[in-house]
């Protein structure tokens, strides 16, 4: 219950401030107006559509970046030569903000889904890659040595020792990466989008509909938290036993 204290106080302050005209109603529309705008958008089926479009983008983009990041981390953990060779290029790409690449991405991939996915991928690749690499490299070497004396083959060592040993770091990386992907959404939808929560916000700005901007922001926050909770469920860092269920 204590987690709700500040949000409830904040909304109460917003509500009473609005009724007493403490704020400029254009810059900060009253909560009731935001709610009405949300109901309106929902009734027209627009909100569901925006959510769906954004969800698909993030899921597809994250599936691509997450799987390639895990793959590259695995390769780089296994082959130090590849790790050394890819180090500088990866570092260079990592420090470039994805938004700085948008003009180039548009030239390369056009204004379709490709460039939007590219922004999401660039934003979410590195958190997954770096956490996964660290997690794999820091698996207790004593347990790997034990696996060797048990004559486990490569695959068994990966399955029984490496992956469960790295699972906490792997799932933290995936969660982090998903958060980054979600937050890159608006940036991605800056690129000539015609639907999506990012588009909703930009479009509302041009129409001077601050209430809808707030709807977009709140929906992004709530959806993001719901997705994160689902994610945590899917990737139990503290319950590796379940991940291994039945494989022994």
């Amino acid at each position: 219950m204590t987690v709700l204290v500040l949000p409830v106080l904040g909304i109460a302050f917003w509500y009473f401030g609005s009724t007493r005209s403490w704020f400029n109603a254009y810059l900060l529309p009253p909560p009731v107006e935001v709610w009405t705008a949300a109901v309106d958008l929902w009734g027209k089926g627009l909100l569901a559509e925006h959510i769906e479009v954004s969800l698909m983008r993030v899921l597809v983009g994250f599936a691509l970046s997450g799987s390639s990041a895990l793959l590259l981390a695995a390769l780089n953990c296994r082959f130090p030569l590849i790790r050394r060779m890819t180090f500088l290029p990866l570092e260079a790409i990592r420090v470039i903000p994805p938004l700085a690449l948008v003009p180039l991405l548009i030239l390369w991939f056009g204004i379709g889904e490709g460039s939007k996915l590219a922004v999401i991928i660039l934003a979410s690749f590195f958190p997954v890659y770096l956490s996964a690499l660290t997690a794999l490299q820091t698996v207790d070497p004593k347990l790997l040595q034990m696996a060797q004396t048990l004559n486990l083959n490569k695959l068994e060592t990966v399955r029984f020792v490496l992956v469960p040993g790295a699972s906490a770091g792997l799932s933290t990386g995936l969660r982090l990466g998903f958060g980054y992907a979600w937050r890159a959404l608006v940036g991605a939808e800056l690129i000539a989008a015609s639907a999506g929560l990012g588009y909703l916000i930009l479009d509302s700005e041009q129409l001077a509909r601050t209430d809808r901007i707030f709807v977009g922001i709140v929906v992004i926050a709530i959806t993001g938290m719901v997705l994160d909770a689902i994610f945590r469920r899917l990737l139990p860092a503290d319950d590796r036993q379940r991940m291994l269920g039945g494989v022994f």
Partner: protein
Amino acid sequence: MDMRSPTAPVEIKGVSKRFVRADDNSAKPAGHAVIKELSLSIAPNEIVALIGRSGCGKTTLLHCLAGLVAPDAGCIQPHGLAAQCAVVFQDHRLLPWASLEQNLLLALRARKTLDRKERLRRVADMLGALDLAAFAKTSPSALSGGMAQRAALGRALLQEPALLLMDEPFASLDALTRADMHDLLLALQARSPRTILFVTHDLEEAVKLADRVVVMAEGRIIEDFPIALPRPRDLDGVEIRTIQRHLRGLVSHRGESTPNSHSINPINGGVSPC
């Protein structure tokens, strides 16, 4: 050629190992000789205790036998022994994310000929023999140190190793638990004997358990002492105490004059044929 054959002794012939320090950046780092042309033969089903000062190379020798470290020179017989070794480390090294039963099942993983039922039966038998049957589904983190080390011993025995290596296996246990482990080991050994090489810092443990005590100093064997006393051994007996005093003298002394010291050849790498 049956590698599990109890009639084949384990032969270590002229094994050498150098470690290059990580901070040595010279073009041809000389390294630091840890094992120096060491030879040792262990008879089938013999229990050999390996003692010596810290840093004299005991763990390195065990790792050479287990295939965890590649010797620079020398040879180990029978061929392919490393795959036939099981190791008990000072820490139990049970996978924390697997149950006790799953951990022991891992020891049978490499035995592709056994079916699942047989594996489960062997693990259940072993857990029974170790008095751990009630903890089959328990996580290792819920076990006491003694129980976990017992499980580690059971896991190693399930491998049915041609050579069981133990590196200070009971050092982290309290005195009473350690004595229980000694009794357990001797009971298991009486039932189904194994060839065992174990490292210890505890001279009492060495003379209580071993058929032979081998003393190492600076990468060489400086004493190879058979203990032909019947078990169970009375640790307060005159003979045992005399042996212990003799061994203590060897260990606490820097073993400069070595009875069986070979001429010191520069180690030039390359494994000699044998």
